[in-house]
């Protein structure tokens, strides 16, 4: 497990997509899960119950092949530095609660003929008993809540946090994965022996074994777990090493800079397009700030910024130039801009009275009119001559056509 660098997988933890996509992917993964369970025969209670009478160990075979496949796959990817297992959601160990819960669930399994997941598949394929089991599971969860005082002592008995067998036993993940594979092969052999032995004693048909298919699957899994072991031997590239192999994390955020006049124009024309935040110390900010700016609260500034609407450009400014990129905005997901020259520049550009142009050419007069209008708007001062100045309120033409940064 490489702790230092971001790994490619899991994609969600690497910020590849948002929460809503995460939920939608849940539906799609669920479709695949339900389809496989059904096609493996898990929508029918007699198939599942047969596990406990030794006549068909299909449950054991499907479940353990599944566990080994996922385990070996994760081990290889972890060894190759592509996956960080520690960033997966790992069930915590609450030993006694899980021992008791497991025992109870096993009893419920043979009573109903399903486990909670397979009862959903059974209901979906038209079985009324599956549907009733689903209702029972729902009711059982409610019973648990209602009878909480009874279960409370057991609920946290043996709580140990996240405990993984490699850490507990001090055995590398790859070796343990190979061990689980070997154990599974043994269990499959034993299961098939039981099927044959009981079948001949009871005079029942033995489930078709298809040894060629089985051997191919197991050979593939064995090969993959051997690769996991081999990766353990590669120096610096095995688990725990080689941060350099991991793909780089998120690219540094692009921080635009915005000119004081452009900001002033945006504040007049499109106040909804930006959130203006003053990052100077609170006292300075309280005394004088750009109209429309919010002072950055001293407690939890990052949380304040993260809560701003991401559709608006976050414009930050300090007294003078703010050294980009401002790390306080790192949790804000929308576009970020910094006011060039900070509050001082805004003051001299907008809040100070504009000088009449020395050489009255068209461009200078137009620039003066714009500045004058903005100055008037922000200070409340009467617009200076020339009197045909642009109206300060909405509808003002874009000043000088040099708006940049402020949008998008």
């Amino acid at each position, binding site marked *: 497990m490489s702790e230092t660098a971001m790994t490619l*997988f*899991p994609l*969600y*933890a690497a910020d590849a997509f948002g929460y809503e996509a995460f939920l939608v*992917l*849940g539906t799609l993964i*669920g*479709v695949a*899960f*339900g389809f*496989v*369970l059904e*096609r493996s025969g898990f*929508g029918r209670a007699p198939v599942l*119950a047969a596990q406990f*009478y030794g006549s068909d160990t299909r449950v054991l075979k499907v*479940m353990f092949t*599944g566990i080994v496949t996922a385990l070996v*796959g994760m081990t290889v990817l972890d060894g190759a530095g592509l*996956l960080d297992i520690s960033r997966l*959601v*790992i*069930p915590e160990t609450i030993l006694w*609660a*899980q021992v*008791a*819960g497991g025992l*109870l*669930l*096993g009893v*419920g*399994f043979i*009573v*109903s003929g*399903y*486990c*909670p*997941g397979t009862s*959903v*598949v059974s*209901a*979906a394929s*038209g079985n*009324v*008993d599956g549907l009733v089991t689903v209702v*029972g*599971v729902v009711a*059982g969860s*409610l*019973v648990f*809540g209602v009878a*909480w005082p009874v*279960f409370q002592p*057991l*609920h946290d008995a043996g709580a140990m946090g996240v*405990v993984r*067998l490699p850490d507990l036993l001090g055995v590398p993940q790859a070796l343990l994965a190979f061990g689980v594979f070997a154990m599974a092969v043994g269990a499959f052999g034993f299961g098939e022996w039981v099927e044959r032995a009981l079948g001949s004693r009871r005079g029942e048909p033995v489930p078709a074994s298809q040894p060629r298919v*089985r051997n191919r*699957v197991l050979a*593939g899994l064995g090969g993959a777990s051997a690769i996991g072991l081999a990766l353990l031997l590669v120096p610096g590239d095995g688990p725990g090493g080689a941060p350099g192999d991991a793909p780089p994390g998120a690219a540094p955020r692009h921080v635009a800079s915005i000119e004081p006049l452009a900001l002033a124009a945006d504040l007049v024309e499109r106040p909804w397009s930006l959130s203006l935040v003053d990052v100077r110390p609170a006292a300075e900010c309280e005394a004088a700030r750009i109209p429309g700016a919010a002072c950055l609260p001293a407690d939890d500034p990052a949380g304040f910024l993260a809560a701003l609407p991401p559709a608006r450009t976050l414009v930050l400014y300090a007294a003078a130039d703010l050294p980009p990129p401002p790390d306080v905005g790192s949790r804000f997901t929308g576009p970020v801009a910094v006011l060039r020259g900070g509050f001082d520049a805004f003051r001299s550009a907008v809040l100070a009275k504009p000088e009449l142009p020395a050489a009255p050419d068209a461009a200078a007069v137009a620039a003066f009119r714009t500045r004058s209008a903005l100055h008037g708007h922000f200070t409340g001062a009467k617009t200076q001559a020339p009197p045909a100045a642009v109206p300060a309120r909405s509808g003002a033409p874009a000043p000088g056509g040099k708006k940049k940064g402020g949008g998008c």
Partner: protein
Amino acid sequence: MTQEKPFWNPYVGGFVLGLVLLGSFLVVGNGLGASGAANRLGVGAAYLVAPETVAAHEVFGEYAGPGKNVLDDWLVFEVLGVFLGGALGAYSAGRMRRGIQGGPRPLAPWKRLAFAFAGGLLMGVAARLARGCTSGQALTGGALLSAGSWAFMMMVFAGGYLAAPFLRRQWR
């Protein structure tokens, strides 16, 4: 009616199941589950009936209450998918029809359904206690080599084998 398709070879089914589980780990970072969604469904139904009681409840209040959407959870979406996928699998294999599953000497329907409900009830309590069921603990936690999940898995088999002799009439 067309012929039912046979079930997949269990090793092939397990392999594909493992790939789905691996895909879930790689993409969203968590494994599969089922009972968590049942819990949220139950709490949600209870919230519709008695919102104040549920919101103030020690256990249920964690899931439902003002400003909380009880169904806003990955497992709820995943189980919706399990239902759809299970239906697609059954229909495309010619296995979808209304019926009650049982052993070679079927019980009276009401008895079989009573067993199904009772078993579900036990599993609902058990899954809350163990923080998951065969999918969320045994399969997912097993593949993640979580110590508690392996203990849970062994106990599921133990419980099943212990209780099986008393339920021969239902299944054999």
